[in-house]
């Protein structure tokens, strides 16, 4: 019997699990995919928003500003790359400057510090590659960037190091309510928990429906992105947004925490959680990116992808106990600025909601620190040599583009939460994420996975289920 079961291994569920693991509770995380961070936490913009977007007094506004302030500390503890690079909402007309003024005012009302509108030469001094048609920009100094899946994986890994349990390939299909909740997976497994937190993102409505809660509806919006080579990572230094219009926020042009350049996302209503990219979507990203920065080096694209974001019909975060189900907590509709808000949401859910349901005692030996997954290439020569001496696998480069060693790959396969497929290794180590997109390292990474897991190469998958890499031996 678990005290708390969290459904959904995204950034919200992950940071919540970590928070829960700091108490003397038996907690677990249920994830329907082969790995964590497989939904919207895998493919979003990775922006730590300043907090001027959300309507004052909304949950979005509250948690955004709080989360923004917490993010640096959380990232440091978890060893996650984070940069306080600042953001700039760019105006291309007088009319848009008026919107910037409104945004600035709204931001100040929300408690955002350091907002300033910059014009003309000052603007281009900040971002020389902006299109010359830009006239002004709202500079938000507290804006930042972080890798969303790295944050999610690290949070869950840290929670597991502190005693939390993870069940992957556990798709909750039935929930029975008695003295506690019993959750059944599609594979026929079951677990029981006193408190259940629904952080299932795109699946949160389905999960709520399983306990008869029909209080909200989830809509899906697909966002397509194009990622450019690290060579273009310095093309802009801040996250550049278009001025929001009635039609929406438009795309952004931003460096990523890993040093690439990211363009996107589009925003298309979709009925299914399908992350296919489309020709029209990718083209519109290119067109809009060129509007923002006419010299954007599109030829340096190394991949394109899309993510599906879940939003609720309430158009604000839903963070509350289900009306008809005591002990069943809803954390749903966490659309942008959900990533930024996640650390604050996790605190709130534990401090304000779970504290009323369970006795919370701090775990004395809780360790909030996690050794970063991605660390080796940043060490000095002397430090590297000490590690290689103790463990020669750190002296073997497997991914040449990102300079990732065998040691790091083995670590990703053996430390919490353990990677079990090619994409899992990629998200933890960046092996295969560089300019050749795994062309060279994929056979080697697959062999290392097979060796560590003690299985044949033929069993290695890209991302679990039926995604095997190979169909059989040639002879």
């Amino acid at each position, binding site marked *: 019997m678990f005290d708390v079961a969290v459904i959904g291994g995204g950034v919200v569920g992950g940071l919540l699990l970590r928070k829960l693991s700091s108490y003397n509770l038996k907690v677990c995380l249920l994830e329907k995919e082969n790995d964590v961070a497989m939904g919207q936490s895998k493919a979003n913009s990775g922006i730590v928003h300043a907090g001027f977007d959300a309507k004052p007094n909304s949950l979005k506004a509250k948690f955004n500003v709080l989360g923004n302030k917490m993010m640096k500390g959380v990232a440091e503890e978890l060893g996650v790359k984070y940069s306080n690079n600042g953001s700039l909402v760019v105006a291309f007309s007088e009319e848009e400057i008026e919107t910037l003024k409104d945004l600035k005012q709204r931001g100040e009302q929300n408690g955002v510090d350091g907002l300033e509108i910059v014009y003309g030469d000052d603007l281009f001094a900040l971002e020389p590659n902006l299109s010359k048609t830009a006239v002004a920009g709202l500079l938000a100094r507290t804006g930042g960037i972080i890798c969303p899946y790295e944050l999610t994986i690290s949070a869950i890994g840290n929670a597991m190091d502190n005693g939390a349990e993870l069940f992957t390939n556990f798709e909750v299909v039935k929930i029975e309510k008695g003295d506690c909740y019993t959750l059944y997976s599609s594979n026929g497994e079951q677990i029981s928990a006193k408190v259940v937190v629904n952080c299932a993102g795109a699946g949160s409505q389905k999960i709520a429906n399983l306990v008869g809660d029909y209080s909200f509806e989830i809509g899906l919006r697909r966002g397509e992105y*194009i990622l450019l080579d690290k060579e273009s990572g310095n093309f802009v230094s801040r996250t550049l947004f278009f001025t929001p219009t009635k039609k929406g926020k438009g795309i952004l042009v931003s460096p990523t925490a890993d040093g690439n350049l990211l363009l996107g996302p589009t925003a298309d209503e979709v009925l299914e959680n399908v992350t*296919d*990219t489309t020709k029209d979507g990718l083209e519109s990203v290119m067109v809009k990116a060129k509007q923002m920065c006419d010299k954007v080096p599109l030829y340096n694209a190394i*991949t*394109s992808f899309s993510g599906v974001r879940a939003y609720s019909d309430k158009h604000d975060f839903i963070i509350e106990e289900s009306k008809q189900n005591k002990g069943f907590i809803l954390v749903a509709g966490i659309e942008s600025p959900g990533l930024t808000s996640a650390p604050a949401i996790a605190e709130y859910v534990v401090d304000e909601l779970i504290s009323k349901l369970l006795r919370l005692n701090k775990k004395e030996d809780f360790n909030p620190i996690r050794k970063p997954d991605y660390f080796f290439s940043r060490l000095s020569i002397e430090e590297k040599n000490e590690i290689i*001496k103790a463990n020669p696998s750190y*002296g073997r480069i497997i991914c040449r583009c990102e300079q990732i060693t065998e040691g790091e790959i083995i670590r990703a396969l053996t430390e919490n939460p353990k990677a079990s497929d090619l994409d899992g290794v990629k998200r933890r180590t960046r092996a295969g994420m560089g300019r050749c997109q795994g062309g060279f390292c994929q056979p080697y990474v697959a062999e290392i996975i097979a060796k560590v897991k003690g299985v044949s190469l033929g069993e290695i998958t890209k991302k*679990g289920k039926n995604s095997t*890499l190979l169909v059989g031996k040639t002879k």
Partner: protein
Amino acid sequence: MRNCDIVIIGGGPAGLAAAVSAYDNGCKDILILERDDILGGILNQCIHNGFGLTRFKESMTGPEYAQRFITEVKNRNIPVKLNTTVLSLTNDKIVTAINDVDGVFQVKAKAVILAMGCRERSKGALNIAGARPAGIYSAGTAQKFVNCKGWLPGKNVVILGSGDIGLIMARRMTLEGAKVHAVCEIMPHSSGLKRNIVQCLNDFDIPLYLSHTITRIDGKDRVIGVEISQVDQNRRAIKGTEKYIKCDTVLFSVGLIPENELSKGAGVELSLGTKGAVVYQNRETSLSGVFACGNVLQVHDLVDFVSEESELAGKSASDYVLNGEKIKNSIDCQAKDGVSYVLPQKIDTLKSGDVTLYFRVKGVYKNCKVVVKDGENTLLSIKKRIVAPGEMERVILKEDKIKSLSSSVQVSVEVD
């Protein structure tokens, strides 16, 4: 930090030939750094034949061709470090490398030869719509799996790109029991060698769709099919021409890119045309004492020319170390009408010897003339029955012409 006369980055065909040549020209203190556990580079997975016809007058497989040079290197006892990846190169020729025995180590070289080869352009660079399931490989990755690991990546295959590796893999996978349903080429002509169209596609009745591309990849876990479309002259898909092909594997053979991250880090000037270093006729880059050869410099069609170019670079590096040879009088060498690049990009008019100009044309031209000019003055005009982007062209400028160059050398294609 240890010192070395010549450090060669890469032990593939370029690095091996450069090492032998540098040694035979008098410079004996050489170190080859190779990331793989054997010498020979990409040739080890190119098990098909057709290598060496120009150089050895016989048709060899990739590993056989490599072995000739490996033997030469071994006979000279030239030191090699295997399983060693170079992490960085500085502009004062300090090479930082890593392996599991020495750890991270640095070597200060008098001369460096860049011989890192090239990489395949990835599917990601093409912005093709659809999902990202398993079963999408670059042709070279599939080649590695099939030829070196003995595993088949898929049974029903569609290939995008008619470059030689794609064609070779069409045959290879067919022989190993897969069915190749189509090879799509976005251009109206194949970018591979004609002989490979015949012996890799025609021999096995594999259809080649010219002016076609893949417009969507279908499948959630594993590829289940692709949509291909015809393209117009601007290479844009034509609506209404979509055709769905069921398959479990898509191979991309859409071009090779010289792998110059180390060169960039050292501040070596790169050429937009070749994506490799800008070099003089001796294959010296903009950084004095740093030389480049093989596919890291320009993507060759034939390994025979890689060897030839690398011997030149090896000799030059040896001359640089032993005699302090420096560039004296530089003039530019430029690609003009119909030509996408010319190599070398710079010529030192005071160096002795003929200069071979390598170039590629932008399109297919029939009954044309290749014209080489010095400013307004025509130096050479050579009639050609046909030239195509898929085949590297070369012309030789004689030493006397080099000595009298005054302006800049320009290469163009003229059609009557």
